[in-house]
């Protein structure tokens, strides 16, 4: 294995990567100020960026299930919901009578761990009855699961009020990080950081953590096992892979990413309600994964950014554009925005069926065959003859 790594090439690549990462780090660090500087509504843009970061986490989580393990999940947003409600229930005044205050402070690390764990358990809960299912069958079951979770949240206000029904849960506090309450402005080096800024950095840091975990997973033994199962479950089994456990692990890992994102969402937003977790959201996250490039981390990140930010950009652009072109408002901008967005997705998938930034595997799979199989056989036959003696 070691013999096959070309070290000079490896180092050069490393240097380039470091440079690119450095530039990205600087841009991300000053982004809140840049947005505030260039746009009147800088904060609403920053909010959009915060959500884009949450979507990156979600897309990377779903990528484990769909992209690596090849299990089509149409109810993924349920885990986001579970994370969000877990945080909300443990921290809001709503359940304070039941949960002693001293037990749960909204400590960042504790909360992230709990949210990841609870969502992971739900992942296994979804995974275990569906182990034998694949493709369209699995999609239907996961779709049902997502809806069931949402409907529970909508209706669990009776007989005992747990989720507070359609109103959702309010007054969720911000997380506490190293003794600081991120809900209050913090002075640092003479600059005042508001909640939206603080959360930007926090979500950004979590996002990087999740990217890091994703990358490690992909190159790990488990990562290879996922791909193997996706390719040929029986052969994978014969290699000694416990396909049951490894698939459940994919569900649990993917779900826990969603849970972490959900907990951040709940504390950032300050309230949660079932309507944030509709089927449409699941589909959007899936669109991010597919459109970006299933199984390829940079692609999935790109997909999440594009799918979550484009509608926001269109919101700002469409009215002025309509005025300039036609001179008056013809179509409701909200409808037009989604229409353009939908069309754009169709065009992208037609032009780049493997996604915007596919992994080399996907590309190879979907590439038009330049040589027929018999030609390939012929080539290798001649090769073999040459190598024979």
């Amino acid at each position, binding site marked *: *294995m070691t013999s096959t790594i070309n070290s000079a090439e490896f180092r050069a690549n490393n240097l380039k990567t470091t440079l690119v990462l450095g530039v990205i780090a600087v841009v991300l660090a000053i982004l809140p100020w840049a947005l505030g500087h260039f746009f009147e509504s800088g904060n609403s843009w920053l909010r959009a960026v915060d959500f884009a970061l949450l979507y990156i986490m979600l897309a990377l989580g779903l990528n484990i299930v769909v992209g690596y393990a090849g299990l089509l999940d149409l109810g993924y947003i349920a885990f986001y919901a579970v994370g969000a409600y877990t945080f909300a229930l443990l921290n809001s005044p709503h359940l304070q009578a039941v949960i002693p205050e001293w037990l749960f402070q909204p400590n960042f690390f504790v909360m992230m761990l709990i949210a990841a764990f609870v969502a992971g358990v739900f992942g296994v809960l979804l995974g275990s009855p569906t182990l034998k299912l694949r493709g369209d069958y699995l999609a239907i079951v996961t779709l049902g699961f997502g809806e069931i979770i949402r409907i529970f949240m909508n209706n669990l206000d009776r007989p005992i009020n747990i989720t507070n029904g359609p109103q959702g849960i309010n007054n969720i506090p911000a997380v506490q990080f190293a003794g600081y309450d991120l809900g209050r402005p913090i002075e640092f080096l003479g600059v005042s950081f508001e909640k939206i800024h603080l959360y930007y950095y926090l979500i950004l840091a979590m996002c990087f953590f999740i990217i890091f975990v994703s990358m490690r997973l992909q190159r790990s033994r488990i990562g290879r096992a996922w791909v193997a199962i996706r390719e040929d479950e029986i052969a994978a089994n014969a290699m000694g892979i416990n396909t049951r456990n490894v698939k459940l692990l994919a569900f649990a890992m993917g779900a826990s990413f969603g849970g972490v994102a959900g907990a951040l969402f709940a504390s950032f937003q300050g309230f949660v309600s079932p309507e944030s977790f509709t089927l449409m959201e699941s589909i959007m996250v899936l669109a991010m994964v597919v459109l970006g490039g299933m199984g390829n981390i940079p692609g999935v990140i790109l997909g999440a950014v594009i799918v979550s930010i484009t509608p926001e950009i269109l919101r700002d652009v469409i009215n002025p554009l309509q005025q300039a072109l036609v001179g008056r408002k013809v179509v409701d901008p909200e409808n037009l925005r989604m229409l353009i967005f939908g069309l754009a997705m169709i065009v992208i998938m037609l032009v780049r069926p493997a996604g915007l930034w596919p992994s080399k595997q996907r590309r190879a799979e979907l590439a038009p065959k330049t040589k027929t199989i018999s030609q390939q056989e012929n080539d290798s036959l001649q090769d073999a003859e040459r190598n024979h003696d």
Partner: protein
Amino acid sequence: MTASANTLLEVKDLKVAYGGIHAVKGINLEVKEGELVALIGANGAGKTTTLKTLMGMVKPAGGEILFKNQSTAKIEAHDYVRHGLVMVPEGRGIFGRLTVEENLLMGAYWRDDKAQIANDLERVYQLFPRVKERYKQLAGTLSGGEQQMVAMGRALMSRPKLLLLDEPSMGLAPIIVQKIFEIIRMVAAEGVTMLLVEQNAKLALQTANRGYVMESGKVTFSDDAAALLSNEKVQQAYLGE
């Protein structure tokens, strides 16, 4: 045929059915340590079914499979490799989206002796120089012959005690078939016990020590390979002579 001390695999009155279809109707087989045994027969005779049953991929309807004198009935599908039972399936079962090297390493998935795994990888590359040249290539883009080599290399990475080969020559050009059989002989020379299923009966019997002939779910002949090669009925039915 009584089980002796060096019997690795013993199959007693094995029956397999798919729903109402009886694919294997009570067969007896034996493979001794260090042997290369061929299993030949026409299409649909039940050869693949037999191998799949030996790997626990299909549950038998009756009979018994003893590996190292112990029943395999309780072994879970993913634990067969840990007992040393490894198969190169019909159609190779390559992971097309993994690279050649990743495929080979999948064979060693169950092992944790890193240094030994690296050694074995080198050994496989020596055995298949063509595979080494393409270690970074996606296995799905290899030619059929190359895929067969990867499949065999991957199986060797599992350190098999008994290697089951299902039609390694299927769909390959004659010259590649020769190459594959050369490798089978080399692997046998290294002391790996093998059960070889083949359509190319002549080549299989020329390579093997012993052979079984299957016909619609039953074993009709079993003898030394040389004896089967000169058996008139076998010649007529399977050797095209």
